[in-house]
């Protein structure tokens, strides 16, 4: 009896040792995303997208297995510093992927600038992340708020509209998108007559709709999201303005909200770096694979998560998974050309995507592509010294 049990014990010990060694070898990826609250669906889509690409690569990045750590950031900027430090200090992750909310992303960027941890932002559009706060270890695979605004301003000017009124929530994302719109629109001869704002997140703007009606601009540019976007588009149509003054905005005004907006959104033009029916081989393959794996339809957030994994994979492949070669890793990530479902893109010097922005039109329950608003649009990265 003695011999077999000894063998088993020895075997077990060896197994534990092997397992331990392997665990140490795993690449630690920390997700800091919203898993509860208004943005819960977005957080899940981003994580799904990331995991999908890892799965396509056989579950490994740069030849290393991956261990995931997860923190629910609750989209609460006041808790962001605590939460990101859990990943940095307690879990000592190699790379952080997050997040959706711009305020939280700013706190994360600040923390990784101090710790040097690699950060990939898969959604938050705050200009400063790849502007004043830019750093070699901070990347973004989504967009800057300025980009969709600029693309729409260009389209509006090309279509010979002369005057515009903007309306948005009074906070960073709204201000930055309006700035982008204004810059392009006024450069090409348009004039913004009024910038209207309501405090975030109130949804009472009947007074401002009356202002718009009295001002009589050629077009209105607006940014709202979620419930606010639904209500604004409906109120705008109910006020009888949609027929005489076209409403335009970034894609967030009509993405994931068309069911609730119903008829009032029909025919609206928006700009975004993704659309429902790109109908490219790359996008179709991605959509099919995603739908099969998660039994869900992918959206722009899933694409951004997927591309975060592609970006990281490209960097790690160049250093064969050795994250200690930080300079080579960053250099490889900077140089890579991501074959994204949205269409291929590269990164700017400040690490923000240089990408095509599509002009989309609402038809039925889809945001259909009608053309490319701006090809290869790069964020100006104001304030970045890199």
């Amino acid at each position: 009896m003695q011999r077999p049990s000894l063998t088993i014990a020895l075997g077990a010990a060896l197994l534990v040792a092997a397992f331990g060694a392997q665990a140490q070898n795993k690449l630690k990826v920390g997700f800091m995303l919203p898993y509860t609250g208004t943005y819960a669906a977005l957080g899940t889509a981003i994580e799904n997208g990331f995991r999908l690409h890892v799965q396509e690569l056989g579950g490994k990045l740069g030849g290393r297995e991956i261990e995931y750590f997860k923190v629910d950031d609750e989209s609460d900027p006041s808790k962001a510093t605590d939460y990101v430090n859990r990943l940095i200090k307690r879990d000592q992750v190699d790379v952080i992927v997050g997040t959706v909310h711009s305020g939280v992303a700013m706190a994360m960027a600040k923390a990784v600038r101090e710790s040097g941890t690699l950060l990939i932002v898969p959604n938050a559009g705050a200009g400063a992340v790849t502007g004043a706060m830019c750093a070699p270890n901070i990347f973004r695979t989504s967009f800057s708020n300025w980009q969709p605004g600029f693309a729409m301003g260009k389209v509006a000017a090309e279509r010979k509209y002369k005057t515009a009124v903007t309306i948005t929530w009074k906070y960073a994302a709204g201000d930055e998108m309006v700035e982008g719109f204004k810059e392009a629109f006024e450069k090409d001869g348009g004039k913004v007559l009024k910038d209207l704002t309501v405090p975030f997140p109130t949804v009472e703007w009947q007074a401002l709709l009356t202002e718009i009606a009295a001002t009589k601009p050629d077009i209105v540019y607006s940014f709202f999201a979620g419930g606010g976007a639904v209500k604004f588009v409906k109120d705008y149509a109910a006020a009888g303005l949609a027929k005489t003054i076209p409403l335009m905005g970034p894609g967030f005004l009509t993405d994931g909200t068309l069911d609730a907006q119903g008829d009032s959104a029909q025919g609206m033009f928006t700009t975004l770096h993704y659309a429902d029916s790109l109908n490219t081989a790359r996008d179709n393959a991605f959509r099919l694979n995603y739908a099969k794996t998660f039994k869900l339809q992918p959206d722009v957030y899933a694409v951004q998560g997927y591309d975060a994994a592609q970006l990281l994979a490209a960097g790690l492949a160049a250093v064969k998974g050795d994250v200690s070669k930080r300079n080579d890793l960053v250099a490889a990530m900077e140089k890579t050309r991501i074959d994204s479902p949205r269409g291929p893109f590269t990164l700017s010097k400040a690490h923000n995507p240089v990408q095509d922005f599509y002009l989309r039109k609402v038809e039925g329950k889809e945001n259909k592509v009608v053309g490319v608003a701006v090809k290869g649009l790069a964020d100006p990265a104001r304030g970045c010294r890199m």
Partner: protein
Amino acid sequence: MNATTFLVQCLNAVQYGLLLFLVASGLTLIFGAMNIINLAHGSFYMVGAYMAYALAPWVGLYLGGGFFTTLLVGLLLSIALGYLLEWAFFSLLYEREHLQQVLMTYGLILIFEELRSILAGDDVHGVQMPDWLAGTIPLGSLMTYPVYRLFISAVCLLVALGMYLVLSRTRLGMAVRAGSVNREMTQSLGVNIDLLYRVVFAAGVALAVLAGMIAAPVSSVYPGMGNQVLIICFVVVVIGGIGSVRGAFVAALLVGLVDTFGKVFFQEAAGVLVYLMMAAILLWKPEGLFRQG
């Protein structure tokens, strides 16, 4: 600003004020009659909006559909909900301090939010309005006004009138007013105060649910919608004088005016104007515009 624009803005202000009154009326009733600070009031508003969204298919299937049938079913459910909540939670709070009431009702907010997330998900949904209210009427050449908004205003006026009549002209109203002044004395005069409070609370919940259901077609339903109305409701109640339905009515119209014209003339300060007004009124009249009654 020309005369037409000015008149339309006045209409906007009154219309917003009336909606505020409808949402705040239940709060001031519960606050005034029972001396309970009910932070969960916004959650009841949210429950109402989600009921308008979720009940419609069921009502269509079993009761032949219709906006008003849905409204009726929702109101009956909300009265049951209010009755149950008063029995299970709020009846334990009358003798406690306000801080404990705040803590418990805050807990209820979290519970309702989580239940909402589990039962209805985190997506934004639209609610159909009845066809005959879906039209618009032109206001000069300026813009059109949705009929449904005017319908909301009419409902608000009816509710205000109904509350005034019940509280000032009926036996029930008298008992409620007496109970709010002195609970023990009212009880010793033979009024079943426990039952009375249960009824008042259920009525308060029903008013919030009514507001949510009526507002749902214009506001759509989305997570966190209850917390947005909660703060402005408290502003209305505090300005009006705690427990005064008349005060809440006047205060709601005042807030509507200040908010509307604030957004037009002082855009940068639009977020704080209402609160500045509240501070000014409280300095002038620390108990609000109207004492109880």
